């Protein structure tokens, strides 16, 4: 069908006016059509009678039909006797269809206002308490599920736990070792560079040992695990929630905490100390390497100094923190995963907040541990 550009000609017939629509009144030309109709609407009141002649319209779709209907309504409202004429049988049902449309504009419900923004801030602050309660609830639920499994060991999901252990521990080893190795190198290089100014090169070993074993090792690994595995847990549980898989489990008489969350938590709690140990060793190795190549501290001297500088306490302080950090990351990730609502956007938001909150709580816990160990003299 050949369809030319649409037009709306005005032809005066005595006292009446005919608006002659021609060409294709279709979606493609919608912007042009809208302008033409807006112009024609201004004719309201100039004549008592206006015919909208559509007999020469070559093609009509919902857009065109609606704009003709809009013109008719607007003219009628202006007190003009407006009629549509020359409608072909093909299109009459379409015009009837759009005639049923109620045109009152719908008000957008969500509008950005200052009070709305203040309300949002207030709700977020009040939400902090809710977050803490949620975390404690989840901790309780996980412990209860663990207790249940202890009483009835057949309910324990070994395969699932091993699977998650592979995901969060074994597959994380290369990246964790690489990054901690590099950080060890950097600490060592910076230490030597600055300590050399007052001839204290050798003390870089003390700094490296204490820093890596007590703080950097565990913090760095915990942050990496929060980003790597915490986000994965949230996304997995969240999409299961969206597709009603968690509801399905519940209706079959299984406890989602026991089936889904306990194996994940356990895998994480086992994985983090292992990764922490590997990470700390890699960092010490990297630091030692740089100290040797860049600072001229040969490996024997490095090891001798390391043995003097650090005690087993430093190592214990680091390794004790690891499972606690793992539990915090796991709990946060699972709470966020179960909080996902129906939309993809919600999944993204909760995954983000899982990582952000996970890292935040890891650092807070580290501070709490620092105070605790200082006061017991470790």
């Amino acid at each position: 069908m050949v369809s030319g550009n649409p037009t709306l000609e005005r032809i005066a017939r005595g006292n009446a006016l005919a608006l002659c629509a021609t060409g294709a009144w279709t979606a493609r030309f919608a912007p042009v059509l809208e302008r033409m109709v807006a112009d024609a609407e201004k004719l309201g009141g100039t004549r008592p009678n206006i015919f909208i002649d559509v007999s020469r319209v070559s093609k009509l779709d919902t857009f065109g039909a609606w704009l003709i209907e809009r013109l008719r309504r607007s003219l009628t409202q202006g007190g003009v006797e407006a009629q549509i004429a020359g409608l072909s049988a093909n299109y009459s049902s379409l015009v009837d269809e759009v005639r049923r449309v109620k045109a009152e504009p719908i008000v957008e419900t969500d509008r950005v206002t200052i009070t709305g923004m203040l309300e949002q801030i207030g709700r977020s602050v009040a939400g902090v308490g809710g977050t803490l309660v949620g975390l404690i609830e989840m901790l309780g639920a996980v412990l209860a599920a663990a207790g249940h499994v202890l009483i009835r060991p057949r309910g324990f999901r070994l395969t699932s736990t091993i699977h998650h252990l592979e995901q969060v521990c074994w597959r994380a080893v290369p990246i964790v070792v690489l990054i901690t190795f590099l950080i060890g190198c950097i600490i060592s290089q910076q230490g030597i560079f600055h300590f050399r100014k007052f001839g204290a090169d050798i003390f870089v070993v003390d700094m490296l040992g204490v820093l890596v074993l007590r703080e950097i090792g565990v913090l760095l690994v915990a942050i990496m695990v929060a980003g790597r595995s915490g986000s994965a847990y949230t996304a997995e549980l969240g999409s299961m929630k969206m597709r009603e898989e968690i509801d399905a489990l519940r209706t079959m008489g299984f406890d989602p905490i026991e089936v889904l969350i306990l194996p994940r938590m356990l895998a994480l709690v086992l994985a983090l100390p292992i990764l922490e140990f590997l990470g700390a060793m890699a960092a010490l190795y990297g630091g030692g390497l740089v100290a040797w190549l860049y600072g001229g501290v040969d490996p024997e001297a490095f090891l001798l100094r390391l043995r003097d500088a650090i005690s087993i306490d430093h190592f214990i302080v680091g390794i004790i923190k690891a499972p606690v950090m793992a539990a915090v990351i796991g709990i946060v990730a699972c709470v966020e995963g179960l909080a996902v609502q129906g939309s993809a956007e919600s999944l993204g938001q909760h995954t983000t907040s899982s990582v952000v909150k996970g890292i935040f709580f890891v650092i807070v816990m580290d501070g709490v541990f620092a105070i605790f160990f200082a006061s017991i003299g470790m």
Partner: protein
Amino acid sequence: MAGEISDAIIRVRDITVQFGKMRVLDGLNLDVKRGEILGFVGPSGAGKSVLTRTIIGLVPKLSGRIEVFGVDLDAASAAERRGVERRWGILFQQGALFSSLTVRQNIQFPVREYLNVSQRLLDEIMVAKLGMVGLRPEVADRYPSELSGGMIKRVALARALALDPELVFLDEPTSGLDPIGAGDFDELVRTLQRTLGLTVFMVTHDLDSLYTACDRIAVLGNGKIIAAGSIADMQASQHPWLRQYFHGKRARAVMG
């Protein structure tokens, strides 16, 4: 077998689609006539959705030719392809509504992207489309997760129709609807086809839809079209699967 039809809106020739070692479609030929409602049936797993997705271009084919609106989709330039895509609408099996957009935004999305029209017209067209699929304007500000299964199908159809396409693909439009809802949906497809002059390519399992909505039926089996024709042709066919399908217990119940 589908013969050569001059005014075919979709022309599929010798299509072969293979996943790994499994040949799903094997030299399939199909024509869809302008203005008809074609019902597409076949056993589960026969490749009905695969054919639909191959025509739309979501599944790569091993060999064959697909023409839609007379445009060979393999030879078409990106601009020609976009032109074709603007003229068809697709209703996915699960609706595939954008979950982070409201009903209003979902329906307006394609219009906003393709046409430079005012917000007022966007809203009015959205209300018109909602009306066409039998929904009230009040649902416009709901999110897909707040809709029932039937409403999701209707909104998805409204979105598929947003740009007034000439051709719509419906992938199991009535699955998951109650019989009354499914009947309404068939009626709706019929009405829309009449008012908008649509061509409809409908994958379905619903015998009621075949009887009430479809002009012509094509049957897929063993990677080929094993039969195509009117409902009477199907009933007269001696093919074992067709005999079972159209003369089984459920078919007798539909025919009354």
